[in-house]
């Protein structure tokens, strides 16, 4: 599924937080958005997912303009994974219940099989199925959140800081899982993060946002080599390079 975002503007009240952002993502590609808190990167992602109705401009999936109110079928194609696996899973529902919500809503068949399949796709033991979220570790919970997105058999995954609440060792496992899933299922990713190394690991192209504007789009290759133009990109890059090496 190709994604086209054209002159996207989002305001909260009188305050414009996204000021005309445009970018395209090819089918099967992965696009990363970096920026500091308040730069509007998550707001862009939420508008794409249909979680925000106050936007203007154009958001199109596979060449079709997405309407302000998305039809149910849209959510079979586009799914989102949130940052905090502690806050995004219902504490009083078992994993089985959480995962069956979407198939029930969409009237899908063979729910039992689908859940078993999706749990094995994210490498969770079958014993996790009838546990509650608090009985799982942070990494396992994020796997559940990814499984919940995958059960819709989507073509696009929108990832909002999927690893920033996790330990680095668990982060590595989740990043590997996301890379594998994309290769297996030919998914298209849009990922938001403030960690440049994480974005560079998973994405082939990066958009840098500051203050509601996307000031630069570079390929990961150019970013690694330092072929960047905007001062903010340079700043983020040099900081990341400086701090990732041990002293």
């Amino acid at each position: 599924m190709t994604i086209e975002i054209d002159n996207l503007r989002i305001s909260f009240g009188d305050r414009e937080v996204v000021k005309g952002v445009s970018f395209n993502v090819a089918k099967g590609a992965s696009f990363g958005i970096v920026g500091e808190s308040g730069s509007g990167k998550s707001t862009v992602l939420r508008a794409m997912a249909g979680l925000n109705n106050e936007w203007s401009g154009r958001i199109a999936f596979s060449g079709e303009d997405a309407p302000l109110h998305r039809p149910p079928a849209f959510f079979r194609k586009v799914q989102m994974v949130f940052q905090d696996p502690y806050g995004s899973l219902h504490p009083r529902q078992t994993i089985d219940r959480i995962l069956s919500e979407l198939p029930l809503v969409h009237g899908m068949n063979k729910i039992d099989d689908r859940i078993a399949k999706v749990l094995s796709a994210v490498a969770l033991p079958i014993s996790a199925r009838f546990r509650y979220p608090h009985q799982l570790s942070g990494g396992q919970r994020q796997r559940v959140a990814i499984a919940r997105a995958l059960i819709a058999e989507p073509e696009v995954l929108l990832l909002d800081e999927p690893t920033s609440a996790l330990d680095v060792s668990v982060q590595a496992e989740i990043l590997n899982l996301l890379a594998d899933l994309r290769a297996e299922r030919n998914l298209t990713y849009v990922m938001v993060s403030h960690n440049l190394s994480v974005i560079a690991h998973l994405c082939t192209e990066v958009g840098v946002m500051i203050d509601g504007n996307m000031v630069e789009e570079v390929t990961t290759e150019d970013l690694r080599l330092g072929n960047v133009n905007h001062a903010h990109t340079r700043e983020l890059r040099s900081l990341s390079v400086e701090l990732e090496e041990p002293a």
Partner: protein
Amino acid sequence: MLVEINNLKIGFQSRTGLHQAVKGVSMTLGTEKLGIVGESGSGKSLTARALMKLLPRQTVIEADRLAFDGIDILAASEKQMRSIRGKRAGFILQDPKYSLNPVKTIGSQVAESWHTHKGGSRRQSLEAAIMLLEQVKIRDPRKVAASYPHEVSGGMGQRVMIAMMLAPDPELLIADEPTSALDATVQAEILRLIEELVSERGMGLLLISHDLPLVSHFCDRVAVMYAGHVVEELKASELLSAQHPYTRGLLNCMPSLIHPKERLPVLTRDPEWLK
């Protein structure tokens, strides 16, 4: 020695028995910067909290020696502890959003911390508060002093927390994940600020974090904790030649901008590490 910890054990009594979370940790700290690194659940925060006796009552703490500047913490009364906490040892917590009082201005909170430890009039403490805010490099200290916590950014909030901790001129600063809730750029600024202030004032620093390479930039020594044990302690500059497979695993599993990896190596946990 500012801090002496010898064979510290922390456990939680539950219905089914005693759960040991920290299993014999030893370390010492003088006027230097020590980093404690480990995953969640490794016992790094518990170790720091035990030092200030800030653990719930049902916690079982044992140690051959647990001392702050020669004072035996385990034997110290609550009164003695109150003269240490804040005054002689400051504690910076992870998220300024939850550590500041939302209904009082920033100035009055910093002034209160100064007044509690130093005394003086209201006016004096407010002036001192503004001086402190200036020291943590807040550009317009008067304006910030008059604002409420929700009106400032996370990085600014953390600077305010640091200003409050510095008010009584402590000898030790304990920073528990001081920057995990902040952006990468702000993170570096705050850590640099902490490091500068600590070096300038000749304080000891205990920096707790899960980010090994980051910590190594701001500390002299690093202790790596795993499942309640210190598995390795080494100089920050010698991190690249770390011996323990856990330390090496933590370093390797980070994605890197400069050295791209096709797949990230995943930690294989060896039961041997627990011995």
